[in-house]
């Protein structure tokens, strides 16, 4: 936790005054967000609200235009590489090379993340996602759902404390979706922090403890899912956004 300050120690993610612009277009307009360790937060919002951009900035794929991001107390501006070790990301893009086998892809990412005992970890994780029989098959020959399973395995290789999921359930069947949440929820008895985006209100309500609604780059609503049912969430969603989900 080098660089962490006392106030942010219990926080996995802390975002202050985050803005991101593409040319003249401001996509994120001053986001402030705190996510506690082990908490799961779902971000809803219409297309173009800035959900994917927010996740990409949190994952350090994009630089923010202004603002500050702390990942486990690490400032991503100065300690990006250490912060990235704590993050796993699953998006509709699998980040897998189609011409390589599942094993070769996982081995490649193990090397980038300095994962110790690579072979053993790959066996362990591939078993967890139920893809052992396909381990030595080229990724391009696998179905979309199977590729997504391998992508989940890729994201978990380095046992990240924080998972960022951008429409991660794309292409997954019900069994695989259940497997995803089982694999993501915890490892070694420690709960992961999860930030996910989805258009599926029911699904988000089910898996998250806190709801954020993002519209035009601003958080227009945030609250707990505990006392909330689907109709209530739909009402909140419609009043917090200008568009339909």
């Amino acid at each position: 936790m080098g660089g962490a300050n006392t106030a942010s120690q219990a926080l996995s993610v802390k975002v202050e005054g985050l803005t991101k612009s593409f040319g003249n277009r401001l996509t994120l307009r001053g986001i402030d967000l705190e996510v506690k360790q082990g908490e799961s937060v779902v971000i809803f919002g219409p297309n173009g609200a800035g959900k994917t951009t927010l996740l990409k900035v949190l994952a350090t794929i994009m630089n923010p235009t202004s603002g500050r991001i702390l990942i486990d107390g690490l400032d991503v501006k100065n300690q990006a590489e250490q912060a990235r070790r704590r993050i796993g990301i699953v998006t509709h893009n699998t980040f897998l090379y189609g011409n390589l086998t599942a094993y070769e892809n996982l081995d490649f990412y193990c090397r980038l993340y300095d994962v110790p005992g690579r072979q053993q970890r790959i066996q362990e994780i591939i078993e967890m996602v139920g893809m052992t029989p396909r381990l030595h098959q080229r990724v391009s020959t696998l179905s979309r759902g199977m590729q997504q399973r391998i992508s989940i395995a890729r994201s978990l290789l380095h046992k990240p404390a924080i998972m960022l999921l951008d429409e991660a359930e794309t292409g997954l069947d019900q069994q695989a979706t259940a497997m995803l949440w089982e694999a993501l929820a915890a490892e070694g008895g420690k709960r992961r922090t999860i930030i996910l985006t989805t258009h599926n209100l029911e699904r988000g309500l089910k898996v998250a403890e806190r709801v954020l609604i993002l519209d035009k780059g601003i958080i227009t609503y945030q609250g707990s899912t505990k006392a909330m049912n689907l109709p209530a969430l739909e009402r909140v969603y419609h009043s917090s956004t200008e568009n339909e989900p």
Partner: protein
Amino acid sequence: MSFWRKVFAITWKDVLAEMRTKEIISAVLVFTLLVIVIFNFAFGTSPDVVKLVASGMLWVTFAFSGVLSLNRAFVMEKEEGCFEGLMVAPVSREIIYTGKMLGSLLFLLIIEAIALPIFAFLFNLGVFSWQLIVIVFLTTVGFVGVGTLFSALAVNTKAREMVLPILFFPIVIPIIIGAVKASESALSGGSWGDISSWLGITGAFDVIFLVVSYLIFAFVIEE
């Protein structure tokens, strides 16, 4: 050590993918051989003519082959959405640059190693001189060093096949001129002393191009 382990992981991944698809080496090699054959028909094998134009022909061929090869350097990452996978990994942008650059360098050197003897055979030249090998190596390093940077820049544009040569050739012209002049001397049996000044210029540009590309690569891919 960790730096080089990760660099080689990226290079090895490119080599593995290329071994499967043969997308770069086979396509660029065919192009290179076709250009050499066309030049052979155009200029014939008269020793006087060949002496005059051989060096230019060689570097025109390698320059266009190089651009064709560099155009593909980041295509796999772009088309398969893997660039973000590299960006989110705990590796510096400099590691990504070095890994990708070494992969492209290896592919281009393989193409040149195959094309050079064929070029020599068709034009009745003795190209197996250490001078020429050093010239080709040094020029290719500088060419690929700066080309990898521009390839990363061009891959996000719609007309990347056109954008890369337009951006890239004006920058590498000094290195190509050095290579043409040095090769001219090496092909006509010149000594190390005859080519040393051009080698020095090429070497200096290599260092400048590599250092600058290495340092600004992060800005190119992040912004």
